[in-house]
């Protein structure tokens, strides 16, 4: 392998040199090897995407209906079938355009998000250091590596100075990995210590490296390209929409066919029967349902974005409401990902607590034991020793931290306790940290003084100490040692990462003076405990999956109130068969520690096999398969593009609380869609009943098809949308998750929409129609559609249905609470109802509108016919809600 060759040979093989490639050669290599970027997903052809909106089951049904109406108009012109055809075509176009627009907007939002991260790299070309777009890097380029850089390609080191990488994007391990010029005994690139990898970040040091591979050929690229193999599951809302459209369409078709044959056999003629059946189908199909659901999902995704959760796929919104398990990372999601020194144990036995979490929150040092002047001096000395012996810098003005997080925590602790200015110490030599030594020392000078400052693991530093700093330097006795070790153990049990601090005059890591211990922790996020408790009330299991050790993971779990029955490590997990692990997953609250990213995929698959709906967080490239597998993959905003690409949702603030907020929104969306489906189905009955009655009773037509479309695509739309935008109900996070087999269009919605509210509305519409006819001297018999009197009666039917829907929308705002108990307002519903009023006035008084919708001005004294049934509707809703409330156990 190339990484095993001497540097000269590596450069020769790559036709490169330490002064880099020529610009001409770069151009050749870009042609040969392509841009340094991951394989781009084939771009969507939006023309085809738009056309697809016309060829699903629902629109096809309407398109066929429109064509039939045109055929009918050809054989029987002047009956208004042409207007019907154009209106139905219009509805299809409106529906398709609207749904497409929402999806297009969501795609563009995602593209914009991914474009935000544009990376650059520093390369040496023709001996000159220049900064180039990372996509322009080619094999043979010489990369200059500096602390904080994200590496642009896989490369072999030519020089390295105290170089450490964070390789977590590749292997999930967060502790920095040291780099050197020798490959070691590695057999493959990923294990080679003289290689750096695309996507990894330099946490410390600097160096030069020659690029070996770019783009998809890098280790990062290889893993990323494999994620496409996982099959993406259909979201519940997709299944639901399929189910709803199938049920409603079959119903519409069945009703149409029944009445077609009834008409045909009762001597109405083929054409008349066909047109009648067609009208019935149009009446039965809720044309406005799909755009309203799409818009409702879109509004929910906008609300979620405000709560820091960016939804990539609108259909995933509702999946969140069904989530039964949240598998979450620890670092950054449950914790702040800002290591903080919280506790200091001084050599004289004093204990000091440091307040303030993270790098930038103000804090101070508080002695927990009685403090003395000597104690304060010892504390300041310890922190000076700890902070000088680091490479980290913390810039409060720019909120910028450079260097290893643990070292940054020491610098912040020194600032909190006002130790002496660090710049006064001059570093002259360093004994670097290594995973074998587990310690680091700096030889420093201040004026004439030369001292060695040491920090490291207790088990590495303590054996090198012979003295201890109490009031003065004393010999470190066995008792001292056992006390220190006991303190160390206690801190470790509480998830503290413990560092021992020591010093001596002069050089050499021996005969050190022990100064004390510093306990550091990545503190839990502020609201995470509350959010976890909300999950438990919402019957959602929370599982922590972390690369950390089991002790730290368990201690953090305790701090944040996470239920843990058993801790499993990645190694133990491998020992379990799928059946055993599945049983454990279903019966216990598990915590997974020392886990590799790849194991997440197995957990997600087994949880799904147990019937759980899994929400899974991740940020590295290795997490991508699990994010794709999960019912809802959640990528961290700070994560890799690959993880974001694979996920359904991106957490902009990486915070667990935002997941819970998103779950709440998901559940709200489910119930909002249920409400608006009930609302839209309700108005179908007053559209169907007039046809059925006209067929059997041979009365004049109570409602024309264009009037049906006016309800479905006009008056119902805005209020329906208002229902879709309803805020979460009081008890939404106390009820169990929405079951995977629970349908939006279930028997309850069907019964309530069609048979209860719908029936009342149907009676209301016919009461208005027949009441108007009888009050105005109608004699039994048919009327022409062009007859003013008939048009007035049809207007009454239309108004009967609309007024009931106006009341219906308010009462449906809550699935559980009485209309009178609703304190929150919904401006969109009010706006929708106002628009309905405007429309009513238009169809009543504007001739141009009347001619389109077959309406006419109705005498004011007849309008009382519209009042009784909306009142009946309110009474029915109130009775139903009280009845339901008695059944709901979660309230």
């Amino acid at each position: 392998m190339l990484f095993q060759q001497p540097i000269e040979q590596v450069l020769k093989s790559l036709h490169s040199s330490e002064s880099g490639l020529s610009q001409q050669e770069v151009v050749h290599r870009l042609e040969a090897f392509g841009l340094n970027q991951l394989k781009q997903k084939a771009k969507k052809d939006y023309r085809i995407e738009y056309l697809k909106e016309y060829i699903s089951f629902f629109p096809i049904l309407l398109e066929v209906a429109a064509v039939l109406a045109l055929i009918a108009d050809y054989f029987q012109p002047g009956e208004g079938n042409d207007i019907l055809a154009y209106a139905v075509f219009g509805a299809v176009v409106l529906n398709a355009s609207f749904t497409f627009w929402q999806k297009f907007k969501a795609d563009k939002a995602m593209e914009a998000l991914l474009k935000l991260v544009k990376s650059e790299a520093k390369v040496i070309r023709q001996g000159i250091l220049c900064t180039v777009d990372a996509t322009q890097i080619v094999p043979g380029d010489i990369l200059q590596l500096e602390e904080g850089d994200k590496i642009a390609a896989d490369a072999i080191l030519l020089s390295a100075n105290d170089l450490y990488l964070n390789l977590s994007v590749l292997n999930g391990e967060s502790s920095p990995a040291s780099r050197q010029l020798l490959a070691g005994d590695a057999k493959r690139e990923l294990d080679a210590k003289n290689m750096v990898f695309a996507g990894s970040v330099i946490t410390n040091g600097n160096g030069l490296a020659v690029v070996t591979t770019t783009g998809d050929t890098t280790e990062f690229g290889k893993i990323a390209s494999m994620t496409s193999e996982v099959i993406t599951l259909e979201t519940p809302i997709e299944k639901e929409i399929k189910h709803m459209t199938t049920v409603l369409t079959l119903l519409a078709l069945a009703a149409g066919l029944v009445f077609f044959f009834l008409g045909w056999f009762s001597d109405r003629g083929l054409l008349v029967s066909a047109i009648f059946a067609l009208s019935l189908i149009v009446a039965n199909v809720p044309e406005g349902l799909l755009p309203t659901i799409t818009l409702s999902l879109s509004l929910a995704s906008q609300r979620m974005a405000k709560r820091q959760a960016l939804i990539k796929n609108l259909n995933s919104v509702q999946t969140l409401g069904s989530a039964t398990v949240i598998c979450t990372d620890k670092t950054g999601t449950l914790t702040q990902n800002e290591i903080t020194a919280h506790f200091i144990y001084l050599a004289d036995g004093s204990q000091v607590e440091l307040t303030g979490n993270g790098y930038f929150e103000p804090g101070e040092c508080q002695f927990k034991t009685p403090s003395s002047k000597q104690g304060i001096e010892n504390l300041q000395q310890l922190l000076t020793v700890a902070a000088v012996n680091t490479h980290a810098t913390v810039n409060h003005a720019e909120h910028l931290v450079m260097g290893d997080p643990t070292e940054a925590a020491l610098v912040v602790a020194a600032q909190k306790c006002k130790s002496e200015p660090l710049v006064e110490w001059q570093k002259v030599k360093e004994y670097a940290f290594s995973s074998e030594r587990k310690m680091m020392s700096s030889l420093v000078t201040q004026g004439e003084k030369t001292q060695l400052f040491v920090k490291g693991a207790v088990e590495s530093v303590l054996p090198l100490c012979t003295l201890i700093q109490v009031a003065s330097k004393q010999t470190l006795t066995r008792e001292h040692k056992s006390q220190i070790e006991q303190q160390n153990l206690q801190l470790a049990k509480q998830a503290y990462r413990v560092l021992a601090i020591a010093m001596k005059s002069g050089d050499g890591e021996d005969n050190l003076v022990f100064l004390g211990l510093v306990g550091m922790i990545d503190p839990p996020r502020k609201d995470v405990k509350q959010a976890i408790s909300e999950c438990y009330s919402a019957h959602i299991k929370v599982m922590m999956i972390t690369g950390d050790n089991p002790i730290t993971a368990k201690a953090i779990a305790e701090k944040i109130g996470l239920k843990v029955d058993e801790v499993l490590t990645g190694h133990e997990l491998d020992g379990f068969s799928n059946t055993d692990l599945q049983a454990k997953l279903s019966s216990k609250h598990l915590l997974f520690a020392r886990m590799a990213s790849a194991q997440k995929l197995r957990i997600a698959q087994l949880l799904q096999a147990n019937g759980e709906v899994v929400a899974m967080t991740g940020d590295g490239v290795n997490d991508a398969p699990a994010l794709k597998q999960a019912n809802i993959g959640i990528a961290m905003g700070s994560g890799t593009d690959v993880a974001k690409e694979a996920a359904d949702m991106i957490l902009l603030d990486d915070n667990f609380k935002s997941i819970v907020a998103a779950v709440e929104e998901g559940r709200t969306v489910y119930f909002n869609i249920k409400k608006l489906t009930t609302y839209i189905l309700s108005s179908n009955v007053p559209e169907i009943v007039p046809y059925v009655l006209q067929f059997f009773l041979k009365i004049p037509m109570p409602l024309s098809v264009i009037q049906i479309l006016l309800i479905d695509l006009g008056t119902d739309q805005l209020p329906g949308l208002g229902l879709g935008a309803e805020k979460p109900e009081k008890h939404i996070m106390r009820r169990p998750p929405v079951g995977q087999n629970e349908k939006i269009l279930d028997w309850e919605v069907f019964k309530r929409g069609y048979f209860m509210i719908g029936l009342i509305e149907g009676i209301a519409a016919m009461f208005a129609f027949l009441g108007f006819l009888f009050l105005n001297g109608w004699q039994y018999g048919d009327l022409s559609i062009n007859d003013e009197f008939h048009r007035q009666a049809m207007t009454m039917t239309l108004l009967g249905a609309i007024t009931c829907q106006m009341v219906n929308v308010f009462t449906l705002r809550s699935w559980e609470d009485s209309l009178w108990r609703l304190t929150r307002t919904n401006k969109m519903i009010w706006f929708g109802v106002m628009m309905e009023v405007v429309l009513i006035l238009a169809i009543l008084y504007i001739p141009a509108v009347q001619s389109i919708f077959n309406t006419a001005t109705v005498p004011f004294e007849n309008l009382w016919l519209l009042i009784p049934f909306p009142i009946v509707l309110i009474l029915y809703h109130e009775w139903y809600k009280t009845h339901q409330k008695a059944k709901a156990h979660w309230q």
Partner: protein
Amino acid sequence: MRIVSLVNGSLLSEAASLYAITYAKSVQLPLTLLFIDNGLESIEHFRLSELSLKELAKAQDVDIEVIILAGDILDTLHHFAQLYAIDTLFCATRKQSSSHSFSDKIVAARLEMDIAVVKVKNVSHVRSYHRVLFAAGSSINVHAYMLWLGLLKDNEALGKLYLQNNRSAFKTTTTSGLKYEAEPFVQMAKMLHKSVEVVNTLQPVNPEAMNNYLIANNLDLVIYDAHAYSKRILNQVSDESSINSILYYSWKV
């Protein structure tokens, strides 16, 4: 007979020649480095490559000769092929296939020799490789098999023989049929003390699944019997892959 490698001094042609050296060594044939000056290539670059390749060939005991000709590359190759008996011609190609790629023209010219088109994606995997796959299709081409075995022979590389019903899902070949096809070739490899793993699949070729298989199995090189796959599939698989590949076109199928 001789092995010929077409070299223009580029990184890719030099990398392709490394495979040619290994193959020449295993079949004990001399290697000819052929540079055709068509006015576009740089002789200086070629000279640099020549030095480096000669050094490597010497280290592997491969007889090497250098021939420099001038003129149109295809015409010159035709002429050259008539004068000399050529076993296999190695030539490198750029990453992405296109109808104008030079290797396509060489393949289309129906020269009287086997042609190994080398697509180098990862330069660092050319000098040594650990896992080499031969994607043979549903029946094994002896010439392509020889190249694969030749590249395996002196390396400590693991060989995978990938037999696949590559036509369609409907025109199935049975697994036992594929096993029967592979058996004599496995025996032949055993005689050369190379153990070979045989992978039989009845799935039709799916470039994405194929690439995932290559990555998941840490392969360093894939040899495709180019006649066993359609051009579209071959281009798709080798273009999208992050692994070096050799598309082997045998003269007589």
